[in-house]
């Protein structure tokens, strides 16, 4: 290969697309490192504090697409205090100053300000795609700047963000000359948008394939929009409430019959169940259905709907579907690959799903590889059956709503059940545990989960041995997050080198002490070991013997970060 001119190698590298493969290329030799860095267009940074923006820009001047993740995953569950970090601002400022021609930005769990969005919109003439997932800190003013200034915008995708509504007409800020939209998702916005502006925008966007509306968009507007965009493939419905005898509803039913290209459906943020019949005609074409926000649909309606969806590959629903409903899914959706069942009430609806539903799914859907399942109870027998029926799991996340709950039939911990899962599913990359668990389950995980990259543990284990089994056994572990487990200093300090092979470790309400964290930080200078001290008392000093409530450590080349709030102590 070294005898080929650079242009040839570059051309070959064009075919190497995945981040991991690209990373591998750069490690082969100096000349490949050099060629790779100048041709690299897409970079993924799983922890925004692992590297500085300046260093990123310096290495990859040809950067076009950047993915950044900020806060740790447990921030989703309110475990990370406000203002912890994950600010977009320094990244945009650095990129804007440089010559990088950024075209795509994907952010997850970051704090995004309107100023950053404004700067973004003005700094990159060819900016095409903005995807914000679980972000916060911005308002509709920031969106207005994006709409107004990004002349070639193709994608604006807002997923589950906390956005303050400033009642300005952000959607109206898309100029008449903007005709390039392919994907627009504003389902998470609370406020109203100008329906006229929306309809006109859709009408002048012939490439629009994905449109997800918020709950302020009523049924009649939906009908007009669908008339203008028969080419839509992915639709998120806002409000679906109407009088079934009204003209608007009849018009909608007829319009729907024309939308044969819709393969993905979501939303129904407001819904009157009797209206659902209108979408039965498109159900047979659906490969993806997300009804996890459709609180207005009851189990029986869900079941009726699902019976029409024979081609589903991805299904996100709420637990009101019940075990019986999951049986219907198992019978109908033979191509199902991904299933998520969410709770409809924080401690669950007692009539909701149990291990029976999951077993039914495993019997009917052998292609299932990704699962997120909130349920009331689980048994070892059921998990063993599921493991046998579905050996292809890549993601297996089980949440038994009552923490520490054992197998209700045998009153034993769920060690054997999860053990069966890891033993059978050799390709498992992500696992979330729940229920009553001893150290034994971790022994199984360490022994069998060879491909495991992410593990989430809560209220489990008996001793340090549990955590050690995992750290020793799971060679590919990248993210480990633990809460409320009796793991302490011995587990933390036995193999400090391990943490440089991982992206991050979160431990909260465990048994580690300040002293141990200090020791770890001292031994491993390329880790940031952060302790959150949320004590109100200002002058409390950290004593070595003190138990740490929350600790987050991550590997980094950027050193101690300068934007940490007062309660974060980087040791």
């Amino acid at each position, binding site marked *: 290969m070294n005898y080929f001119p650079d242009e040839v190698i570059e051309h070959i590298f064009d075919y190497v697309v995945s981040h991991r493969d690209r990373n591998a290329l750069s490690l082969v030799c100096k000349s490949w490192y050099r060629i790779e860095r100048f041709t690299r267009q897409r970079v993924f940074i799983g922890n925004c504090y692992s590297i500085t923006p300046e260093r990123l820009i310096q290495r990859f001047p040809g950067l076009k697409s950047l993915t950044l993740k900020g806060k740790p995953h447990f921030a*989703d569950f309110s475990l990370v205090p406000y203002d912890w970090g994950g600010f977009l601002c320094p990244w945009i400022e650095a990129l804007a100053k440089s010559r990088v021609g950024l075209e795509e930005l994907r952010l997850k769990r970051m704090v995004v300000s309107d100023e950053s969005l404004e700067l973004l919109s003005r700094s990159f003439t060819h900016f095409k795609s903005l995807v914000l997932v*679980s972000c916060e800190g911005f308002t509709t003013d920031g969106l207005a700047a994006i709409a107004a200034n990004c002349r070639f915008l193709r994608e604006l995708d807002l997923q589950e963000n906390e956005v303050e509504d400033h009642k300005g007409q952000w959607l109206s800020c898309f100029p008449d000359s903007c005709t390039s939209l392919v994907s627009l998702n504003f389902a998470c916005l609370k406020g109203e948008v100008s329906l006229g502006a929306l309809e006109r925008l859709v009408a002048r966007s012939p490439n629009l394939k994905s449109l997800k509306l918020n709950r302020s968009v009523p049924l009649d507007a939906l009908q007009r929009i669908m008339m203008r965009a028969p080419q839509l493939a992915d639709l998120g419905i806002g409000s679906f409430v109407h009088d079934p005898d009204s003209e608007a509803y009849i018009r909608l039913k007829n319009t729907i019959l024309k939308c044969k290209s819709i393969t993905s459906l979501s939303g129904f943020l407001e819904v*009157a169940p009797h209206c659902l019949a209108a979408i039965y005609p498109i159900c047979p074409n659906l490969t993806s259905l997300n009804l996890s926000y459709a609180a207005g649909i009851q189990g029986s309606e869900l079941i009726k709907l699902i019976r029409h969806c024979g081609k589903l590959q991805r299904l996100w629903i709420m637990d009101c579907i019940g075990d019986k409903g999951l049986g219907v899914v198992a019978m109908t959706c033979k191509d199902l690959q991904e299933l998520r069942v969410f709770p*409809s009430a924080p401690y669950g609806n007692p009539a909701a799903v149990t291990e029976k539903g999951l077993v039914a799914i495993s019997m009917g859907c052998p292609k299932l590889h990704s699962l997120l399942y909130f349920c009331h109870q689980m048994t070892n027998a059921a998990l063993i059956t599921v493991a046998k029926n579905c050996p292809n799991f890549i993601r297996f996340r089980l949440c038994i709503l009552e923490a520490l709950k054992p197998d209700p039939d045998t009153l034993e911990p769920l060690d054997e059940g999860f053990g069966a899962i890891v033993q059978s599913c050799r390709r498992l990359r992500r696992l979330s545990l729940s229920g009553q668990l001893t150290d034994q389950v971790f022994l199984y995980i360490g022994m069998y989960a060879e491909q495991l990259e992410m593990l989430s543990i809560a209220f489990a284990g008996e001793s340090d041995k549990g955590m050690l089994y995992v750290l020793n056994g799971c060679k590919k572990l990248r993210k480990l997050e633990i809460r409320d487990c009796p793991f302490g200093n011995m587990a933390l300090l036995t193999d400090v080198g391990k943490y440089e092979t991982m992206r991050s470790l979160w431990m909260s*309400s465990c048994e580690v002490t300040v002293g141990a964290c200090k020791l770890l930080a001292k031994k491993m200078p390329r880790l940031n070991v952060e302790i959150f001290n949320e004590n109100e008392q200002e002058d409390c000093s950290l004593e070595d013997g003190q138990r740490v409530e929350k600790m987050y450590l991550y590997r980094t080349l950027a050193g101690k970060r300068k934007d940490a709030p007062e309660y974060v102590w980087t040791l």
Partner: protein
Amino acid sequence: MEKQGLGLGLEITELRLGLPCGEPVEKKEKKEKKRVFSEIQAGDDDDDENSSSEDRKVQTKNQVVGWPPLCSYRKKNTVSQTKKYVKVSMDGAPFLRKIDLAMHKGYSDLALSFENFFSCYGIREALKDADNAEHVPIYEDKDGDWMLVGDVPWEMFIESCKRLRIMKRSDAKGFDLQPKGSLKGFIEGVTK
């Protein structure tokens, strides 16, 4: 012993979304074996080594931060956060009750609540025969008019309902109270 402690005492303080009147007796028996989360907070014998750390974690009596692991955006947008308490009166009952309409998924759900509240006052028997039902559920809407329950879609109903009354049919002589559509389902929900 456990049943009583768990069934009545803790349920009142338990932070969960459910019918205020609690569950029927049969379900309570099954609960014995379940280690309900509140049990842990109450200091379970089996959990001695963990109980002190449990205390530290618990903020209010029966609530643990970040459990279940549902992201806050989803919690805010699917679990019904809004409350809509309305008074419910039944002709013949000595006192009124209050019901959270937002906690109910539909008319049959509402009917079940009525049954729980007023079973001792005969609503079950009264509504057994849909055609000749002795009682009729009506509600007062935003305009102050009394309307028959069941005509409009559930979402619309919640929106406009200000209070409920279970009225004796005999007081509504001459009016068409023929149960149609949702009202029929409502009655069936009670009599099942």
